[in-house]
């Protein structure tokens, strides 16, 4: 600084004294970390109670965010399971002449089972096909009368194909099975002349459905991500508004000599507490809604047994833990970022 009226020696002495005084000030302040942490926590709890409406608003927004997160994850799992279930249904149906002997059918099944891509082979003779038709139409008395007619039975047994239904591990690799069916003489001899194997048609339809399921799953994840970002911004703004309304307090705290952590701490504790409460509520609501929709989803053939058994065992604790941790992270980070502006000024 210019224009000083002090001599160099006086300035040096002042500098020395200043440094000594500053060191002493720090030393005299006796920071008791546990005590300070306790006070920060206490004031965070007080603030939560005394700003109850803002706390409720922040908690509600956080609950919505966590529910969106849970629903997106659940939807992703369900769609993924649904796609798998659909792919499971991809099978190759080989229709054979009605007169194909049962022994031949068995030997054909054995040949097919030797292919490593084949999961199961279900064979059905013309008689079994006829019996299945009777069972499927048991409710329709009129049709049953027709089906049970001796002439009709004879016609059906003569025209109904025997079938081989093949399930595979990899639906994208059917060439080896196709090769056997189309070129093995024991097959070509008995293949039904009018009904060709169905693997291509059926597969394409199911592949289309599963690819749509994948699109829906990915779209859901992207939408969920967007919702998550929006609701995190809403939480951030709610906490920022809460801190903005208390900027005078922050200014006063700074002037009285509170350091950054002592000012920041209670705000973070308050937001963290909102996170804990919303985590618990969101986890409970998620569990409740899952239990409500689970029978419906299962009835559509979606296999949720793993998820259901997890949510009905001690793993449930993890759902709560994840929700609480996410709530605390979102709340505390928002508070930390929002308050920094007022501490820097």
């Amino acid at each position, binding site marked *: 600084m210019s224009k000083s009226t002090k001599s160099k020696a006086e300035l040096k002495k002042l500098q020395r004294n200043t440094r000594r005084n500053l060191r002493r000030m*720090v030393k005299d*302040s006796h920071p008791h970390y546990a005590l300070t942490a306790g006070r920060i926590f206490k004031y965070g709890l007080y603030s939560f109670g005394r700003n109850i409406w803002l706390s409720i608003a922040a908690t509600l927004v956080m609950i919505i965010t966590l529910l969106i997160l849970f629903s997106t994850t659940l939807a992703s799992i369900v769609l993924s399971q649904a796609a798998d279930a659909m792919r499971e249904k991809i099978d190759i149906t080989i229709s054979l002449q009605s007169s194909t002997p049962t022994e031949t059918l068995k030997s054909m099944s054995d040949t097919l089972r030797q292919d490593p891509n084949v999961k199961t082979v279900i064979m059905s003779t013309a008689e079994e096909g006829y019996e299945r038709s009777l069972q499927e139409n048991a409710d329709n008395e009129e049709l049953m009368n027709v089906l049970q007619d001796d002439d009709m039975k004879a016609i059906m047994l003569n025209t109904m194909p025997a079938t081989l239904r093949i399930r595979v591990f990899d639906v994208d690799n059917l060439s080896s099975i196709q090769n056997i069916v189309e070129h093995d003489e024991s097959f070509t001899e008995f293949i039904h002349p009018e009904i060709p194997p169905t693997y291509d048609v059926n597969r394409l339809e199911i592949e289309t459905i599963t690819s749509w399921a994948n699109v829906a799953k990915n779209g859901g994840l992207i939408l969920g991500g967007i919702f998550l970002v929006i609701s995190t911004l809403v939480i951030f703004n709610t906490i920022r508004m809460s801190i903005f309304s208390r900027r005078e307090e922050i200014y006063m705290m700074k002037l009285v000599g509170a350091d950054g952590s002592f000012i920041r701490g209670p705000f973070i504790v308050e937001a963290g507490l909102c996170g804990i409460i919303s985590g618990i509520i969101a986890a409970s609501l998620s569990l409740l809604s899952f239990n409500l929709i689970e029978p419906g989803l299962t009835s559509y053939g979606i296999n949720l047994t793993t998820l259901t058994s997890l949510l009905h065992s001690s793993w449930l604790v993890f759902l709560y833990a994840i929700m609480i941790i996410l709530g605390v992270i979102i709340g505390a980070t928002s508070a930390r970022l929002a308050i920094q502006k007022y501490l820097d000024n």
Partner: protein
Amino acid sequence: MILFEHVSKTYPGDKNPALKDVSIQISPNEFVFLVGKSGAGKSTLIKMITKEESPDTGRIVIGGIDLDYVTPRYIPYYRRRLGVVFQDFKLLPRRTVYENVAFALEIAGMSSKDISNTVPKVLELVGLLDKAHKFPDNLSGGEQQRVSIARSIARQPKILIADEPTGNLDKLTRREIIDLLQKINAFGTTVLVTTHDETIVNYLQKRVITMKDGAIISDQKDRGIYKLENKPKLTLKKPLRRKTLKQRRTNV
């Protein structure tokens, strides 16, 4: 105790300086009024002491500490050595009177036992012991200002800065607050008060520093009175005035 040496400050974007070559020396245990119109530079000067602002040129030494060396890390520690009172009290609205005063001690890491000993004593000194568990909103302006003073003196600072402490108060309450500040000064604290209140300044007749356009235009070290222009010093001669009135009556 407080030393300003040729301190100047111009805020960015401002044409005129907020402080113009200000030099002041205030000794320990002094009671000083800083007067001047709005925009005279009083608040900037206070902000320099509280280290909210830094000078462009010049040196400020407070309680043996050259503020040039008080880096952001040391600012909280430095401020704990000051007591600051504001016109608008600046209390924590969601904390009780007791908690407001205790806050100043808690940030310094004082033990809970010491705090529970100190706070009632300070509240008793300002006459608010019976309102310890009330919230600021439930107190009158004068009471809120007394809480603010209690908070500022709880750590027994060597320097107390009061920025327009009576600005929002009625006449009777103003007198109470000034009496309280005098009491604190009598305990050995240096008190610097900025004010517009002519009555209070003339009532106490302490040292009065007058500022205008960022510069000090007068420094009445003894029996100062409120004046905003740099005219020859006027002293109040109450007996003479009474005599004059008597003479007038006689003349009538």
